[in-house]
């Protein structure tokens, strides 16, 4: 047993941390918070240049074919920002979905440009009747002579506004199962709109009689659910790693503040009530970290057939999502006034922990899945 990162992963981590410090400091992130996409062209280009969008794209499609753990090491550093922008949407979830569900031709067509950040993919699955299960997609695709017509609404779509391709989940007439369609965001009839509120870069996509050709179908019509689940299984632990990074940053800033903030002549960290909050945060953080790492290890070491892998993934998702949320709450208790000042930076995490709370299934969703995989 050895729970340490490899030397090469340590290097990845340092490089990623340096990049974040240089290119995505708190001040930059506060500025990006005000933008529709969450990134700037310059930042996007630089991140693409160091390969952040192609990590999970196999070499034959222009990526670096890294392991999930390698990617997670980088995402953990991104989460510490927290870095906004469609990195996960496109470089992880988008790429994995195309890889799992697409035909060889579709992989060749999309993956190389996703790997260099030229195309940005976002998954448009959830609808006003919100959920992540197999029954949550009801939007229809009506077959025509040479393709399909799509009409309906997708809601709470992450990075909808910056996507060039919307991987749209539909029910194609004549097929029981779910179908994924590669829809160019510029197709007439497609419109995206950012939703305002205590969340970032989540939008609504409306499809008003959108015509797509038959080859827009990713893989075979009606058979996308299984490959999409495989993509989810790999993507989720990476999202978890991002949340672990966020929780770590929240812990770090809280611990530091407890040492330097003086009230009643003492650093506030001397008060046991403050200690309790910080101890809670690190418990959440460590729980998140180790559930995530174990899930990654199971996936990378090809334990896919191991029946524990699914449970591990659900466990990690439930624990890290709850953990990031609670870590932020605890940090607010410790920081009091200064923590709610926007320019302090804590609220970037608070908002991100909320933005990601339901994404790819909220903790309750994953707890229920665990109840199934544990087969009581």
């Amino acid at each position, binding site marked *: 047993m050895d729970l340490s990162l490899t030397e090469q992963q340590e290097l990845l981590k340092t490089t990623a941390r340096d990049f974040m410090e240089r290119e995505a400091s708190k001040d930059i992130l506060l500025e990006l918070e005000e933008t529709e996409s969450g990134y700037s062209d310059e930042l996007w280009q630089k991140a693409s240049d160091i390969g952040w969008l192609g990590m999970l794209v196999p070499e034959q499609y222009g990526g670096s074919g890294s392991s999930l753990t390698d990617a997670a090491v980088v995402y953990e550093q991104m989460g510490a920002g927290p870095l906004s922008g469609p990195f996960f949407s496109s470089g992880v979830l988008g790429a994995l979905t195309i890889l799992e569900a697409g035909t060889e031709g579709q992989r060749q067509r999309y993956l190389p440009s996703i790997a260099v950040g030229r195309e940005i993919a976002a998954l448009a699955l959830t609808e*006003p009747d919100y959920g992540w299960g197999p029954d949550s997609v009801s939007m229809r695709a009506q077959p025509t002579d040479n393709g399909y017509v799509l009409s309906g609404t997708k809601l709470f779509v992450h990075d909808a506004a910056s996507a060039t391709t919307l991987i749209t989940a539909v029910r194609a007439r004549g097929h029981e199962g779910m179908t994924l369609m590669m829809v160019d965001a510029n197709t007439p009839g497609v419109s995206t709109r950012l939703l305002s*509120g205590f969340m970032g870069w989540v939008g609504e996509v409306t499809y008003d009689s959108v015509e797509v050709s038959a080859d827009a179908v990713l893989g075979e019509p009606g058979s996308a659910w299984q490959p999409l689940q495989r993509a989810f299984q790999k993507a989720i632990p990476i999202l978890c790693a991002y949340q672990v990074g966020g929780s770590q940053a929240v812990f770090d800033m809280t611990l530091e503040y407890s040492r330097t903030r*003086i*009230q009643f002549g003492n650093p506030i960290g001397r008060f046991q*009530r403050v200690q309790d909050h910080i101890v809670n945060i690190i418990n959440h953080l460590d729980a998140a970290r180790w559930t995530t790492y174990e899930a990654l290890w199971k996936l990378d070491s090809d334990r896919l057939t191991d029946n524990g892998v699914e449970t591990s993934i659900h466990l990690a998702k439930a624990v890290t999502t709850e953990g990031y949320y609670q870590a932020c709450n605890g940090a607010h208790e410790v920081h009091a006034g200064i923590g709610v*000042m926007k320019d302090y930076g804590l609220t970037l995490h608070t908002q991100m922990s909320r933005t990601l709370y339901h994404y790819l299934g909220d903790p309750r969703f994953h707890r229920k899945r665990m109840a199934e995989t544990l087969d009581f």
Partner: protein
Amino acid sequence: MDFEPRYTEEQQTFRTEVRDWLKDNVPDDLANPADSADTTYDDYLQYRALGRDLGEKGWLWPTAPTEYGGGGLTIDHAIVLDEELDEYSLSLPPYYDSGGRLGGASILVWGDDDQKERFLPPIFKGEVRTWQLLTEPNAGSDLAGVQISAVRDGDDYVINGQKIFVGSSHGAEQYWTITCTDPDGDRHQNLSWFIVPAETPGLTVVPMDLLIAGGEGGAGTGHKNTIFFDNVRVPASNLIGGENNGWQVATTHLELEHGSGGTIRRNRLVDRLFDYARELKRDGQPISKDPEVQELLVDVFVEAEISRLFGLRNYWMRHAHQKLAHEGPQSSYYRKTSGLRMGEAILKILGPYALTDDPKWDKSDSHMEVFQRSSIVALHPGGTAEIQKVIMSRRLGIGRQVREQAGRLA
């Protein structure tokens, strides 16, 4: 024991009078946005005008003594006023003001006759709006550690320093503030309170950018500010409670701020949430029919009921002149921490709908999204949740022989 407000004939007559008056005098185009920072200046002016009209009738601070411009009414009347205003989602005063409940009430206890005559009528009649200026960058929970200095110079005091997290949007006419009058003096024996007219030269107000301004129990606060004092000259006659006696005054002020005043208002959030849950569909049916959602809805209901009862108890205790101990900070503590738990439950119940105020999809006029932010921010004003626990412990005599007494309210 009787929880039901029993109304006397006199009260019901009063109710009719209030109801008619409100119908004629509350402008119907007054917006009451979920985030009080969204209140426009025009609306603010209308709220102020309504406040003055209420003040004119003695209904703005109904139980404050008539000799100082209050209504001189009984608690029974105050209850009726509260209830009737609640029908308009309004409270007394109908805008953010720390004057009547905190500053005015403290002056009533600690001011001299001349000060009561000068300062109280404008407050109780709604002619001036007062902000409370307590917190500083280095003095939050540790209020006794304020550093802003007030130095006697002839008939004046000259004030220099900085206050943060104070006030609201759209300005005020005066500030109620605690200063340090003896930097070398013993702790708790070196502080003094002043009323500072807002137009005094040397004051600069800079808005702060917060997650949301949050509430302090009463009407929404709008945004918060930093206020800089640069050689601000205040007549010595504006010193309340005597030089270096500020901590005594503070105990009165804080007692009220910590929730001892109580409230009989309902928390409308729960009604809004229930309505939302009946409307929002998942898997084709209202989420309120889902047994798991029902459990969470009940969690929220339980939290809200306990909060309501603590507020109700304190309201009764205060007005029935019962001796208060841990009850004030308890109600404050519970409201703060249950707010956080309710926020989490609502996030689970509504899913991402809880996070958006998008007019097309949100069915709560922004209230749910605002609550996701305000329940975090509300942990801090008037003393953090943890500080409420500290005070409760002292009042209960945990680990000490002598229980700390509640601050003087009259």
